[in-house]
């Protein structure tokens, strides 16, 4: 075996050339210009070597095939033409792979993503392992891009139009079995025989025993929709309508992907590839893509962040935890822990409460069974990991307890005293409070340095963010353990310093208040929600209030007003709603109407009767609504950075996007400032401050940045 290039090895056995992709010093294989040049060299060599009849492309990495293109290279693009040229280079390589004299078989084990999947599609045959690590994904649209190395052309040709659009537009992970079903791979084998079977198939392709062009039998629906121009036109039109509805024009890559797929069915293939390259170039130079790629870097760098600066102490090994409080949050935490094979001692004060909690845990876990994300055995194993109790037996061996009892300081203190009496001395107590300062909880602790905040968001199994709240007393290994455990649960973890509302709820408060003020002034509920949906939030602020519960939002709002004064005083509309006994969706009575099963209907017009705005609606331009709500949040986020509540802009941006749903394509509040320019933001804030005194005073950091033309992130290169 000889290393032809640094990343590729070539060996020739019985007329079959085995190309092993093994990028040095990297955990996964990625395509870059030099790797592509290496492939060119090897493919050229194979063409010339008469001893080579067929070839196999396999990865040298354990459990990872090819992760796609090296995104670092995307940062170097100076504009659309650069990106288009890179795409064209990819096309040339894939064509060479596809048209190679010696047929190439892709032997796939582990993640096969983006460019890796495009290379696999260019191969003459695909053998994959029937293994949970083997997944097929086109993540490009999540980065604001489209597949740029022939994916939009070869995928529909391989699996049909409807399936291809689904895979490309949703960026979903396709598991091995499903990939075999949809025809994305030709055959599934056990990992131990992957190489052998791939070599055998390569020989059969060379001898003609296995034809290079194979047709899969398809169903009637496929014939009607995928198999003829009229059906395809219908499918494409439906896809366009659906993306418009969902993306509200904020994600141009979805439209571009549809357009590229459409080109696969029009004219010669070269034209299709050219169209894909053109659209890829266009997308790669959008601000949307820039921000989504930023988020990719931000979350990737957070995964490597231990949570403390400098020499981070190793986190404790957490295989068992205790969860105090079996309510909705406690049950969610217990369920996500069980999903990661963590044993949970699940305690409350009465058997009835524990039983309800277990039932909630079961519902969360069962959902994954229903979606076939786990087998019945896995489901039962996970369920069995959560053991209910009304006593503290079993807490003597747990290194971490997460407290999710009633939001009342006295209750928390009592529970803390009880549990600390039985815990081993090194154990950590994490409180899942969202309103009580961690220092307050810790002040009655025997070991305040081992008390920390782990602020999960509801519903725990769906919300990707975890705020780890630290006080000046918190010990470093307590922080690293909380961070590592949160990450084990699949959460994106940010470190937040103890302060009312922490970070996410702190910046949410002025945003929701401003939405309420617009209602005070008489703006229609659907106008406010609609404006913020168009801005890119996944739900409007008024709908969010209904979802969270107005009682909870009201309680939190009062705490914020007490801590930060008039700037964060809740709206009058909020108070009127609470006075009217409307608590949102859970009581089926909120700003919106809800049917008996809790399904949301239109705006409840009767609320205008008692809102300060009265019955007559006032119109405020959409962009003014957006500015007021969004800038209230942005300004508060920068205040948090100023006060050291978040360590760096990256954490604040990730927190806003993953905790609140700040439009991902805007990168987050700090990225939003950079994109607009601090000066422009300050100018807008000053104008709003003049109109609505006291709420929009730009914070000092912004004013200073405006003067110095400052930024939160570097203008060029890697953002973090």
């Amino acid at each position, binding site marked *: 075996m000889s290393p032809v290039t640094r990343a590729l090895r070539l060996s020739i056995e019985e007329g079959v050339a085995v190309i092993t992709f093994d990028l040095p010093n990297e955990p996964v294989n990625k395509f870059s210009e030099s790797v592509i040049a290496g492939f060119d060299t090897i493919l050229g060599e194979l063409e010339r070597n008469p001893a080579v009849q067929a070839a196999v492309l396999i990865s040298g990495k354990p459990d990872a095939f090819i992760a796609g293109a090296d995104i670092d290279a995307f940062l170097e693009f100076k504009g659309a033409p650069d990106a288009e040229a890179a795409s064209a280079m990819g096309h040339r390589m894939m064509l060479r792979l596809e048209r190679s004299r010696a047929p190439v078989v892709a032997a796939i084990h582990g993640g096969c993503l983006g460019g890796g999947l495009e290379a696999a599609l260019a191969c003459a045959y695909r053998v994959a392992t029937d293994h949970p690590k083997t997944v097929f994904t086109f993540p490009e649209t999540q980065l604001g891009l489209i597949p740029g190395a022939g994916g939009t052309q070869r995928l529909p040709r391989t699996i049909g139009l409807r399936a291809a659009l689904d895979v490309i537009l949703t960026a979903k992970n396709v598991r091995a079995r499903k990939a075999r079903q949809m025809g994305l791979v030709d055959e599934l084998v056990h990992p131990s025989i992957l190489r052998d079977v791939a070599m055998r198939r390569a020989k059969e392709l060379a001898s003609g025993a296995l034809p290079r062009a194979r047709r899969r039998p398809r169903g009637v629906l496929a014939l009607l929709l995928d198999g003829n121009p009229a059906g395809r036109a219908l499918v494409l039109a439906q896809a366009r309508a659906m993306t418009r509805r969902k993306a509200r024009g904020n994600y141009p890559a979805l439209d571009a992907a549809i357009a590229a797929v459409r080109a696969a069915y029009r004219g010669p293939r070269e034209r299709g590839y050219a169209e894909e390259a053109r659209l890829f170039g266009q997308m790669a130079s959008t601000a949307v893509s820039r921000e989504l790629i930023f988020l990719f870097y931000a979350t990737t760098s957070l995964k490597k962040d231990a949570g403390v600066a400098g020499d981070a102490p190793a986190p404790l090994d957490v295989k068992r935890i205790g969860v105090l409080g079996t309510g909705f949050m406690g049950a969610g935490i217990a369920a996500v822990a069980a999903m990661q*094979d963590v*044993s949970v*001692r699940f305690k409350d004060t009465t*058997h*009835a409460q*524990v*039983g*309800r909690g*277990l*039932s909630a845990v*079961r519902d969360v876990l069962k959902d994954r069974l229903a979606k076939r994300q786990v087998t019945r055995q896995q489901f039962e*194993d*996970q369920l*069995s*990991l959560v*053991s*209910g*109790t*009304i006593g503290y*037996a*079993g807490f*003597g*061996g747990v290194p971490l307890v997460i407290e999710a009892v009633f939001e009342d300081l006295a209750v928390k203190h009592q529970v803390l005293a009880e549990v600390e009496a039985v815990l081993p001395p090194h154990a950590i107590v994490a409180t899942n409070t969202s309103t009580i300062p961690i220092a307050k909880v810790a002040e009655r602790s025997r070991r305040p340095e081992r008390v920390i905040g782990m602020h999960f968001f509801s519903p725990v199994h769906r919300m990707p963010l975890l705020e780890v709240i630290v006080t000046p007393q918190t010990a470093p290994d307590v922080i690293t353990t909380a961070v590592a455990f949160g990450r084990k649960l699949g959460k994106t973890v940010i470190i937040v310093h103890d302060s009312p509302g922490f970070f996410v709820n702190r910046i949410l408060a002025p945003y929701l208040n401003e939405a309420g003020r617009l209602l005070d002034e008489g703006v229609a509920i659907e106008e406010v929600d609609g404006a913020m949906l168009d801005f890119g939030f996944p739900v409007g602020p008024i709908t969010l209030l209904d979802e969270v519960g107005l009682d909870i939002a009201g309680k939190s709002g009062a705490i914020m007003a007490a801590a930060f004064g008039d700037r964060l005083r809740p709206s009058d509309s909020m108070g009127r709603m609470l006075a009217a006994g409307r608590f949102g969706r859970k009581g089926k009575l909120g700003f919106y109407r809800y049917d008996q099963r809790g399904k949301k209907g239109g705006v409840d017009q009767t609320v205008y009767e008692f809102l300060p705005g009265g019955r007559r609606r006032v119109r405020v331009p959409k962009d003014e609504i957006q500015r007021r709500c969004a800038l209230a949040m942005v300004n508060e986020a920068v205040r948090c950075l100023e006060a050291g509540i978040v360590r760096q802009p990256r954490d604040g941006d990730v927190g806003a996007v993953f905790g609140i749903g700040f439009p991902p394509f805007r990168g987050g509040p700090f990225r939003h400032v950079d994109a607009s320019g601090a000066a422009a933001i300050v100018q807008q804030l000053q104008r709003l401050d003049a109109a609505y005194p006291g709420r929009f005073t730009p914070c000092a950091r912004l004013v200073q940045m405006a003067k110095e033309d400052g930024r939160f992130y570097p203008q060029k290169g890697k953002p973090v």
Partner: protein
Amino acid sequence: MALSESGRRVAIVAGVRTPFARAGTTLRGVSAIELGKIAVRELVHRTNLDVDALDLLVFGTVIPSVLAPNIAREVALMPLLPKRAQAWSVSRACASANQAITDAADQIALGHATIAIAGGAESLSAVPILHSRGFSDVLVAAAKAKTLGQRLGAFARLRPRDFIPVTPAIAEPTTGETMGQSAEKMAKLNQIPRREQDALALQSHLNAAAGTRDGRLTAEIAPVYVPPSYDQAMTEDNGIRSDTNLEALAALRPVFDRRYGSVTAGNASPLTDGGAAVLLMREDRAAALGYQPLAFIRSYAYAALDPGEQLLQAPVLAAPVALQRAGLTLKDMDLVEMHEAFAAQVLSNLRGFESVHWAERAGFREPVGAVDRARLNVLGGSIAIGHPFGATGARRSTTLVNELARRGAQFGLMTVCAAGGLGFAMVVERR
């Protein structure tokens, strides 16, 4: 056997069980495997056991699942436990959990293991109902058939009687005698009056009720949140009747001999669902890990006799051997824990202890002696608490050592009768 060697004795560190539920009631939807897992999981949590140190798990069950015959392995494969722990299942009828305990103790004594879990579980709500032999033959033939014709031919051989399912009975395969018939026979052979049987049953209920009331029995119980809704938590046994009396028991009709019989549903143990487990450790290991064992196993013995004779009388043969191996006598025993399959059997066993005839059969000159009733089954027995065959031995071991510990007493004797004419006796010591 070096069960009593200093520093290497086998310690019973703790025991946990599920509540025992009469078959067909609260736990009818919970399989024996699940019951076993619940008991073992709670045992691990309550003892804060470092599971990575667990060497093996032995479990007893009498009517195993046809689909998962090695219940011990199924229980041991719960995610809480390490996959490398050995696991095997044992069957010795009502002494199955005792067999599990002595198997594990032997492994520890031999130096093959230092930490083990032993126990058992039974769901008598879910007994497997089998196809008839004729129906099975047809299914096997159909599965082997290569053509449609052959397959149809196989089914054509079916006769109406083949559709009658087979329910396993609690009867001796060799004698055809049911357990109840055997007890009835023993009552007659040993001249046990109905009145005495009912009185013993009443005492069992009263003792168990007191133990439930004051928490001594419930302390060993892991609550079961009853699936699928979990809105009910079962925390105590549901067969114990604190309100029964001699009149009510006397009013029950004999079941197995309606004319001259004395064995009733009231003076026999009921069909029961439940699981139980104990944690065993080598003495020095327990001390090193900071555990304070409830008791140590000092000796044990098994015995057997012809099942056609007195099916449940073998404890009388096992007890003197266990006492001899312990170097102790009945007088040294602070508590005696005797399995209550039937009151008639308990009373027969007690008479056997006092009999020179049975002593000679066991190879001794002197009888074991008369058991002080104040020390017998002080927390009730299987008649009141219930009898999930595979679990009972671990439940009773737990109850015995807990009560010895509470009393600050030193020695305890446990005996078990079992189907097949088998018997067991074990001596435990506190210090």
